[in-house]
């Protein structure tokens, strides 16, 4: 047995010299162009960061490729961002242009800073998770192809954070994103009564259901699902493989909008349902890409400079959001879970 519990490498062994020297001394920054940041230190030192879009699902070839680039331009140092972009950290201004040229040659997109759409935080999907109601990688690739210009340019009122989660477990933590795409099921799980008592603990299965839709079926030593109460979250399947819920005909995605995480100006916000369902349409998820583009365009046209998606909607009101986007407002948009009453309008203040 090898040693254990030694933890990750210490960051100080990995950061470039310029950062070591200016650690905690940064004074201000500028965006030189989309994807390129300049940070200036109290010492006068200047650090240039070039941000590059990553597929996240990367082969070791890809990692080696970026290592090659880092060796050439940033003294063998690089980092990844919290949204999975790659950042080359340059202490030499002169290397910025050559690096940009090289990246262009290699077809690697530079951007994601400032008022852009940055990389989409996402999850495993059909690539690696049993739970997925949609694929994540394919959806993200299709989306980013469609939104490419928004990544490499700064043409939005503020940053727009998009996230994808392939099931309601929401590993993409999409619930506070400007635009959130979530894989959903639309039919109750199917129960394999034969197998259930062998592989699942019935009390945990029952407890797993947020709406209390699962009741014991003592006769079959199994459980039953009340189809009127089930809202297809799949949590029973998470705890019990004998309750498969994936359904090619009916699975798809939902789109939520208006969330944010930063405390800038307004408090963090949850994303809210905009489009209850779009079909899974691999490999290009055309409807979803079009819908997201449309959501972005309406925002870009109507929000004031600096307004985040949710700030814009709050200013104009949801009734106008649905009008401007032309999206239908349905009963599905109205909450009926625990905190529902706190989302109901308890004022006569609204627009027509």
């Amino acid at each position, binding site marked *: 047995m090898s040693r254990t519990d030694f933890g990750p490498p210490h960051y100080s062994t990995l950061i470039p010299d310029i950062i070591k020297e200016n650690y*905690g001394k940064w004074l*201000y920054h500028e965006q030189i162009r989309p994807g390129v940041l300049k940070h200036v230190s109290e010492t006068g030192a200047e650090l240039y960061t070039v941000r590059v879009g990553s597929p996240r699902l990367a082969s070791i070839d890809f990692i080696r490729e970026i290592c090659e680039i880092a060796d050439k331009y940033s003294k063998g140092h690089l980092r990844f961002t*919290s949204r*999975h972009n790659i950042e080359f950290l340059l202490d030499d201004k002169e290397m910025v242009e050559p690096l940009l040229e090289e990246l262009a040659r290699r077809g690697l997109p530079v951007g994601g800073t400032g008022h852009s759409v940055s990389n989409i935080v996402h999850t495993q999907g*059909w690539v690696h998770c049993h739970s997925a109601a949609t*694929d994540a990688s394919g959806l993200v690739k299709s989306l980013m192809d469609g939104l490419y210009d928004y990544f490499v340019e700064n043409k939005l009122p503020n940053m727009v954070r998009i996230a994808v989660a392939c099931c309601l477990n929401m590993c993409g933590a999409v619930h506070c994103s400007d635009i959130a795409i979530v894989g959903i099921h639309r039919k109750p799980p199917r129960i394999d009564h034969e197998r259930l008592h062998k592989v699942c603990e019935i009390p945990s299965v029952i407890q797993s259901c947020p709406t209390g839709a699962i009741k014991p079926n003592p006769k079959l030593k199994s459980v039953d699902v009340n189809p009127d109460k089930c809202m297809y979250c799949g949590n029973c399947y998470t705890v019990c493989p004998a309750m498969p819920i*994936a359904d090619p005909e009916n699975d798809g995605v939902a789109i939520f909008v208006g969330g944010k995480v930063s405390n800038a100006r307004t408090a963090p916000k*949850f994303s809210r349902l905009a489009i209850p369902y779009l079909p899974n349409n691999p490999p290009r998820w055309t409807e979803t890409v079009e819908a997201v583009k449309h959501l972005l365009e309406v925002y870009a046209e109507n929000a004031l400079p600096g307004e985040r998606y949710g700030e814009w909607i709050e200013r104009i009101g949801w009734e106008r959001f649905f009008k401007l986007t032309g999206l239908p407002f349905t009963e599905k948009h109205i909450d009926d879970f625990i905190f529902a009453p706190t989302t109901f309008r308890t004022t006569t203040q609204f627009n027509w």
Partner: protein
Amino acid sequence: MANEEKKTPLLDQLEEGRWPSFVKEIKKAAAKNKKAEALLGQLELSYREKKVHWKHGGIVGVKGYGGGVIGRYSDVPEQFPEAAEFHTIRVNQPAGWFYTTEALRKLCDIWEKYGSGLTNFHGSTGDAILLGTDTDKLQPCFDELAEAGFDLGGSGSDLRTPSCCVGPARCEFACIDTLDVCHEITMEFQNELHRPMWPYKFKIKIAGCPNDCVASIARADLSVIGTWRDAIRVNQEEVKAYAEAGFDIQGLVVDKCPKKAVKYNAETREIVIDNESCTRCMHCINEMPKALRVGKEGGATLLIGAKAPIVKSAFMSWVIIPFMELKPPYTELKDFIRTITDWWDENGKTRERIGETIYRLGMPKFLRDTGIKPVPQMVTAPRANPYYFWYPEEVK
């Protein structure tokens, strides 16, 4: 080539377009590795059938650890025998996701030897994810990782790999040393990180300022967010420079301050900040980073409870400690983590996140049990219902 293209006609369409293609990545790996090739095939099947082809993970791992590996099995192993087992290894990333090419190459070399050659840089909790290997490769792979200085991250009902924003390494807004806090906490709680022992997972994310560039308020059971206690530092010369450059201070800064705490005198071209009203939202500083700086007395606000929607709804983290100074060795923070996880361990049900336990038992009980002092900063508003409790010692 023509032949190969026919094999994955759907995925092939994802090689087109300007954004880097994960399909190209899988194909690159597939060219050298059978597991990656099998993955490609199975994924094409999923695309054709619009259906996932993985089964629930079984318990697999490496010696001495209870987490760090996600077991994964194909449900069509007859079609894709090489993908029959396709486990992932979560490698605890360095704080701030900084790497040398040397370190990265080591990881690649090890993974070339033991795995599919596919990775996620990074997983959405923060780990470097090595995607796809067999059960019997786990131990040797880890042994080499360990040798190269890479430990496993969390999985299961344990402390998940903490992560942090770039912080003082590259950001002028950092009010705390995010990297150091992240590393020190990770080191302090190695046992909790590697051996699932709690009711459910527990995540920590550390952001240097209220911009929260690691989304900790949405995604971490414990959100540590830098802030300051004193005044915003104003450089009036730079304010003038912004004004001269034509920047709309009134419209873009003053009018957008949520607390109307910024006053701008267009004549003197000076800014005055009412720091007592300021809630440190960062907006003015974000807009004028050359002229405005966070205060000098840095520390962190500690918030608890964020999580995804299942079961009770998604939560964002709730303010619990408005301000804690964070200086090495971070004893207060470590004690705090112990206090709250002990409480949760004692009171939580299986598969109940700490936020859910607090919700079920009530914040007042949580505070009472842990000895944390109630302060108005914990709430946006006090309770509207009259349903509160009195303790025997309070009544006659």
